[in-house]
């Protein structure tokens, strides 16, 4: 096999948040938000990360960019070891990795005009000479479907879809290679969602971008991703190409998750696997396989032993005792 260029290559990433209590703020435990996750993303691909709220998918996205410090593990982005970089070095590599946030209403500074929102970091990092600055911003705005006269307007004058375009423009202005998109379309209406997804796909093709696309909307993830990872309670339970995962979901959790998605056709009656109860607390996760408390195919071994990640061929990996043989 020829050498594959991985933009993101992380192994055993852990992020524990301490729980402090009492007068002396002693640490009494940890919330294991991300508990040993391996993730690899090829250049120019979209990696879809799905899971319920509280499963650690956003934390993983932020940890990869070192927006929050990982507790343990190796993270390499564009071949650089992120965990060892010092503050000043980190600042220099930041332009090549950007983030798009979920809520376009709170992620834009209401007191800055659009041009400044997009351009602030461009100037800080000296991406283009000062003389070309304005033309550069206008070009980025055009790429993202924003009209040139928007440059002096303020965020409150825009609708949700346009604000998300501004967020995308802000990330793109720095010529990044890797973008973490944390639920970029969840806050938008269906018709606007489609516009933004199309825009993101276009830009990816044009600029050879790599996305980590975090979402709980499975139909959107299926549409945009090449590879999908399913997370449950801080662990990656299944990982593989989009076709493999959707055609042949292996982990009981993945199956239940897919069957829970409502289909826009009144004649389709789903064979639904209903999950009992809620996701357990990540501060006190169940022993053995974390999913065993809600799993319909739970065996004795699941309660005691943590399942290992097994490759089922074609890069499709699953962590479940059902596939031991």
């Amino acid at each position, binding site marked *: 096999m020829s050498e594959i260029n991985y933009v993101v290559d992380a192994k055993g990433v852990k992020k524990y948040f301490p729980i402090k209590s009492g007068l002396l703020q002693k640490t009494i435990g940890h919330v294991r938000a991300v508990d040993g996750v391996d993730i690899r993303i090829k250049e120019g691909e979209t990696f879809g990360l799905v899971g*319920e*709220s509280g499963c650690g998918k956003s934390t993983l996205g932020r940890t990869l960019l070192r927006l929050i410090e990982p507790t343990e593990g190796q993270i390499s982005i564009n071949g650089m070891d992120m965990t060892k970089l010092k503050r000043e070095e980190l600042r220099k590599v930041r332009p090549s990795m950007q983030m798009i946030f979920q809520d376009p209403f709170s992620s834009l500074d209401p007191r800055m005009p659009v041009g400044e929102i997009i351009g602030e970091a461009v100037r800080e990092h000296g991406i283009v000479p000062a003389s070309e600055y304005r033309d550069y911003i206008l070009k980025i705005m055009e790429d993202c479907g924003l009209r040139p006269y928007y440059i002096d307007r303020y965020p409150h004058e825009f*609708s*949700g*879809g*346009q604000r998300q375009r501004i967020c995308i423009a802000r990330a793109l202005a720095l010529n990044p290679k890797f973008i973490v998109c944390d639920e970029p379309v969840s806050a938008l*209406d*269906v*018709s*606007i*969602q*489609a*516009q933004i*997804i*199309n825009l993101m*796909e276009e830009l990816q093709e044009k600029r050879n971008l790599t996305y980590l696309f975090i979402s*709980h909307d*499975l*139909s*959107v993830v*299926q*549409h945009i991703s090449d590879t999908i990872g399913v997370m449950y309670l801080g662990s990656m339970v299944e990982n593989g190409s989009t076709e493999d995962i*959707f055609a042949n979901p292996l982990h009981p959790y993945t199956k*239940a*998750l*897919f*069957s*829970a*998605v*409502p*289909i*826009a*056709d*009144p*004649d*389709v009656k789903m064979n*639904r696997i*209903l*999950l009992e109860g*809620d*996701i357990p607390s990540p501060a006190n996760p169940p022993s053995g396989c974390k999913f065993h408390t809600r799993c319909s195919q739970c065996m004795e071994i699941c309660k005691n032993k943590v399942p290992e990640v097994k490759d089922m061929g074609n890069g499709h990996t699953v962590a479940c005792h059902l596939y031991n043989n």
Partner: protein
Amino acid sequence: MTAKEQKQRLKEIKKFNAKKYKEYNKNQRRKRAPESEYVTKMADNDNIIEFDDLKTYFYTDIGTVKAVDGVSFEIKRGKTIGVVGESGCGKSVTSLSVMGLLQGPTGQVAGGSIRFNQVGKNRAVDLTKLPVKEYEKIRGNEISMIFQEPMTTLNPVFTIGDQLMECIALHNPNMKKKDIEARALETLEMVGIKRDGMLDLYPHELSGGMRQRVVIAMALSCNPQLIIADEPTTALDVTIQAQILDLLRELKDKINASIMLITHDLGVVAEMADYVVVMYAGRIVEQGTADDIFHHPAHPYTIGLMKSKPMLGEHVDRLYSIPGNVPNPINLPEHCYFKNRCEMCVDKCEGAYPELISLSETHKVSCYLRENEVKGEN
């Protein structure tokens, strides 16, 4: 527009609003109203509620927002109706108008009527004209509402027992405390979360799915005839959403209630609703049975909505997207509101707003494109 004209216009708006506010306040202050004023007749006694040309306007400082502008539909007893549309299309305002929860005097019902069938009392009332005292007897008792965000619906400083029992005690003043508690436990059992000490828990001690179950328990505690569910599962995960939808369906049959389900998720509607109403910019663009809407969508907006949602198990290279944005709700044009985003425009679209026309007994659409189909059939 010059600055002077602008100032003049704002002044006119202010004057107009002041008049509307005064009328509203005068109406609100009335303690009693004769029964003849609000008791009406249903068009069809099988319906639980009938919206007849409902108009809900907001008189704001920069102009009148016609949030709901001439909406008519009805809900049959024991059926579920899904109201779909994008944010700002007036679906939530419609439900708030039913509950009398509009933020007055800015928001008020400007015309039309909402006829509610009080099956137990064998009469029908017009909710838009109902005095406050009468409203209190209906709200939470015969009509109840489930809101989107369970965390903000529940009061964080009271136990869920307090909140559940308050509603029951209010509508059954003669009930003993012991019976009220028993009833509260019964409703918790109905939604599947009865446990010892459950009534003494505070909302923050529950997960999102459990909180929504408590909210549903509150809504069901008085055996309502109509449940209005305003995006009941939007804040929840898909696995929890599946649980809650299952629960709602089961409970509806158990107490024989009707559900008005407001959502933007076409998948949820397809799964739950018998009838579907599609709204756009304050008006109904299409209505019909779930089969009509999902298998024979007639309005370009409905078709666009369906196409723009990626479907599980289907692969398309590029998603269809409806161009443009929802129009500004102030000073809406005379012609069809969807015209500027529509790809199937005909010359006639320049004219007046298209009337709702019937394609079949259940299926209605407001679009000039379909006029010929009606004529062809007759």
